[in-house]
C-alpha cells in the first residue's frame, strides 16, 4: 500500500490531462455532422423542433393537440417536439477487492477510464456522477457535476477510491436507480467477478430506463496465471479457499474458462443491445475511449 499511494497521486498527471483534451477534441470530430454535442430527448412540449405525432391519451396537455389534423382526419393526435436536456452520465465504478489485482491493478485502469469518460462528458456539458461500489458498506457517490472545471473534483474523488470488499453488482445497480431519479447513461466499469452474475445488475438498469454501457476490465495475465503444483487458492474477496493441483492442462482449461466467462457476458450484452467493451489492463485507456466513441455507444 505504501507504493500504491504515490502511484495514485501520479495517476492524473499533466500527460494524462493532455490525453484527455485530445480525446475531447477527437470526440467532437467523430460525431460532427451526425448529431449535436448535446443530447436530445423526445418529449412533449418544451422543444422547438417538431418530431412526431402520437395518439392522445387522457391526461395529456391539450395545448399540444394538432387541431389541423383533427380537422382533416377527425383523430386526436398530439404533437411531439425534440427537447434538449442535460445528459446524466453515471460512472458506476467497481472498487471491490478483486479490482486490487492485476498489473497494473484493475482499479487504476478503471479509474483512468472513468476520468477520461468524465472529462469528455463534462466537456460536452453533461452531468457526471461517479458511483463507486464494493463491499458491504455504502460508498458515497460523487454528486452530479457539470463543466470541465469540475474535472479536478473528479480526479480527487477517484484518488480516494480504495479497492476492498465483495462485489455486489445487483445491489450497486439497484442502489443507483433508486437514488437517482434522472435517467441517464450508466457506464458500468468492472471486472464482473460477482458470484451472483452480471445479468441482474444490467437488467435492473435497463428496466429503470437507464442506458447501461458495460466496460469489462481484466488483466490478461489473470487468464494465464503463473502457477504450478499443489496450491490452496483463496478468493481475495470472499476468502473462500480451495486446494488445487495446477498442471499445464488445468491452466489451459482455466484460460478457456476465463475466455468463456468474458464471452458469456459479451453475449448477454449483445442480446440486450447493451454496448460492451473489453478493457484489458494492457490496452491504453485512450484507445479504449476512442473505441467507445467509434462504436457510438457513448452518445446516441
Amino acid at each position, binding site marked *: 500500500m505504501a507504493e500504491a499511494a504515490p502511484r495514485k497521486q501520479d495517476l492524473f498527471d499533466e500527460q494524462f490531462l493532455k490525453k484527455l483534451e485530445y480525446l475531447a477534441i477527437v470526440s467532437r470530430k467523430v460525431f460532427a455532422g451526425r448529431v449535436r454535442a448535446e443530447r436530445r430527448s423526445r418529449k412533449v412540449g418544451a422543444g422547438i423542433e417538431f418530431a412526431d405525432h402520437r395518439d392522445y391519451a387522457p391526461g395529456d396537455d391539450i395545448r399540444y393537440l394538432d387541431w389541423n389534423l383533427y380537422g382533416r382526419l377527425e383523430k386526436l393526435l398530439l404533437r411531439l417536439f425534440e427537447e434538449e436536456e442535460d445528459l446524466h452520465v453515471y460512472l458506476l465504478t467497481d472498487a471491490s477487492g478483486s479490482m486490487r489485482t492485476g498489473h497494473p491493478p484493475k482499479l487504476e485502469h478503471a479509474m483512468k477510464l472513468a476520468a477520461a469518460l468524465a472529462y469528455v462528458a463534462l466537456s460536452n456539458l453533461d452531468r457526471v456522477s461517479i458511483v463507486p461500489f464494493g463491499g458491504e458498506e455504502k460508498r458515497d457517490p460523487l454528486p452530479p457535476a457539470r463543466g470541465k472545471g469540475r474535472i479536478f473534483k473528479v480526479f480527487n474523488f477517484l484518488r480516494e477510491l480504495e479497492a476492498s470488499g465483495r462485489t455486489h453488482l445487483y445491489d450497486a445497480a439497484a442502489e443507483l436507480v433508486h437514488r437517482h431519479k434522472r435517467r441517464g447513461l450508466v457506464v458500468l466499469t468492472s471486472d464482473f467477478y460477482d458470484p451472483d452474475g452480471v445479468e441482474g445488475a444490467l437488467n435492473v438498469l435497463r428496466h429503470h430506463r437507464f442506458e447501461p454501457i458495460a466496460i469489462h476490465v481484466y488483466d490478461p495475465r489473470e487468464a494465464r496465471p503463473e502457477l504450478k503444483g499443489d496450491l*490452496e487458492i483463496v478468493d481475495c474477496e470472499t476468502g473462500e479457499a480451495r486446494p488445487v493441483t495446477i498442471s499445464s492442462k488445468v491452466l489451459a*482449461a482455466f484460460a478457456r474458462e476465463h475466455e468463456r466467462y468474458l464471452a458469456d457476458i459479451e453475449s448477454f450484452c449483445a442480446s440486450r443491445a447493451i454496448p460492451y467493451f473489453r478493457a484489458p489492463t494492457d490496452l491504453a485507456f485512450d484507445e479504449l475511449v476512442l473505441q467507445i466513441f467509434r462504436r457510438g455507444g457513448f452518445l446516441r
Partner: protein
Amino acid sequence: MSFAGLSGLGVLAAFAAVAGPLVVLYLLKMRRRRIEVPFVKLWQHVLSEREPTSWLQRLRRLLSLLLQLALAALLAFALGDPRMAGRAHDARSVVLVIDCSASMQARDVTPNRMAKARAEARKVVRGLGGADAALILRMDAEPVPVTGWETDGHALERAIESLEASDDAADFDGALALAGDALRGRTGPTIVVVSDGALGEIRRPPAGDVRFVRVGASAGADNVGVTAFNVRRYPLNKSSYEVLLEIVNHSQKPAQRTLTLEADGEAVDVAKLDLAPGEKLRRFYPNLSGAQSRLLARIEPHDALVLDDTAYALLPPRKKQRVLVVTDGNLFLEGGLLLDESAEVDRLTPAAYATARAQGYDVVVFDRFAPAEPPRARGLLYIAPPRAQSPIAVRSEIKRPFLTELAEGHPLLRWITLTDVNIAESSVFALERGDVALASSLHQPIIVAGQRGGQKMLAIGFDLRRSDLPMRVAFPVLLVDALDWFAGDDTQLASSYRTGRPWRVAGPPGASQVTLIDPAGGRALAEVGDDGFALFFGRHVGFHRIAAAAPAGPASGPASGPAADSWIAANLADPNESDITPRALVIAGRTAPPPDLGGPGPRRRLWALLLVAAIALSLFEWVSYQRRWTV
C-alpha cells in the same frame, strides 16, 4: 543371494532409515502454498470438470509414496552390493596363476607375451560366474598372490594390469603348492595357468582342476641365449683370468650370431657363431689379462627374447696385501707365504713386537705368540697361540690328534685335503658364536676361523714344526686361501649371480647393513651377517651396486678406511627360460585343457543395475509429478 557391501540387516536398516521419514511425511498433511486469486468461481468450474475422485486422489498419493519407497529400496539394495549366489555346486574358487617369468618378455607376439597373458587373464576373469571367487597368483622365481579371494572383477583386473614380466625363472612347483594351499577347503577348486608353457611336466597332480591358457607363437619363438657366463682369476696369478661362456640355440633351425666379449667397454673378442638347431656351444677364454673388472658378452642380432642376449660378469679386483709375520723363526711359514705373489711379507720377532709396529699391515701372523691386545689389521692368523693369550679360548690340550671333521665347504679349505695329517699335540679351542671349526679331532676344534670386532681370525692350535702339515701341498694352499679370505677375495664368490635366486653378497668391511641398488635404481636393504655376507633375493639382470647402509663404528675396518661401494653382476642363466618355444602343460601325463568358465552367467554388477533402475525411477517420478500423475 549374498551381499558384498552392507549386510542384509544393514540393507534393511538403511531402507528403514529412509522409508520411515518418508512415510511420516506422507502421512502428515502437506501444507499447500496459499495463493490469492481474484475469483475462485472460475477455478471451481475448471476443477469440477477435472476433479479426480477421492479414491483416485488417494491412489495418486499412494503411487507417489510407493515410488519413493521403491527408490529408497533400490538405493538401500545397491548399498548392499548384492551378488547372485547361484547354486552352491556352481560356485568355484579359481586361482589364476599368471606366468611373469623372464620368458614372458619374449616378443614373438605383439607387443609381448606378458601383455598377451594379461589379456588372456582378463578374459578368464570376465568369464567367471557370478558366484565364483578368484585369486591372482604371480608366478616367477618367488610366486606370490597379488590379491586375496576376490569376487570383484574390477579389483582382479586391476591386479592383472599391475603384473610385469620379471628377469627370473618361474617356480611352477612353488606356485602350484601356493595355489593348493589357497584352494584348501574351498568349493570348486580350479587352477588356471596362463603361461608360455616352459614349466616342465608335473607328475603329481595338484588339488583342483588345472586349466591352461598358452601364450606365445610357435612360429617366431626362436631364441639364442647366453646360459652361462663366468669369469675367475687364477688363484696364484691374480693378474690373469679365464672366462667360460655357454650359448644355446633353442630354435628348431640353424642360427647365425655374432658374439662380442667386452671388458670395461672394450672388445676382447668378436666371433661369428653358426649354431645348429638345439646346439649348446661352450667357449673358454683362458689366460686373459688386464686390469678390467666388468665383462660383458653380447650376441647379435637380437631375437624374440632380448634378455638373455647379453650376459654380465665381474672380475674380482686384485689386492696386494702387506703381511707381518711375528715369529722367532719358522721357515715353513715364511716359505709358504712367499708363494703368494700378492703378499708383501715382513718379519718381526715377538720381542720386538709392539702394537704400533703392526700398524699399516693387512694381515698379521703370530707364530707361537699372541699379543695381549690384537693389532688393528684386517686378518689375524694365530699359530699355536699360548693358552693364556689365545684370542680364542683354549679349552684343553690334546695329544696326537687326528682330524676327523673338516668344514669342507669353507673357502679356507678350498683345494685342501687335511686327512692323515700327523700332529704331535694341539690346543682345543672353545668356540664362540660365529666361529667355525675348520678341522676337529673327534669334535674337538683345533683349527678355527672366526671374527672378533670385525677382524677375521684364523687360529691353528698346533705348532707347525711338530706336525707334517708344512710338508704337504695343503699348507701353502691353506696360506693362500687364508690371505684371500682375509682380503675378502673369495675366488668361490660368484662372478655373476643368477636371477631368481638368493644372492650371498659380501658386505663392505664393518658395515652392518648394505643396500643393493639394481640397474634400474631400485633399492633393497639387508643385514650383514656375522660371516660378513648379506642375503638378497636378486631379480634383475645387469650390474648391481652394493653400498654400505650404516658403518658399524670406528673400530671396524681397521686397514680398509671408509667402506667403498662394490659391484656384482647378475644374469638369467637359465636354459629353461631361454627356451621360449610354447609348450602344452602336462599334468601327470595328461595335457591340461583350456579353461571352460562359462558358469552360471556372466558376473553382473547388480548394484550398478540397481542404481540405473533408481535413476530411471527417479526420472519417472519427476515426469509423473510434472504430469500430475503423482503428487
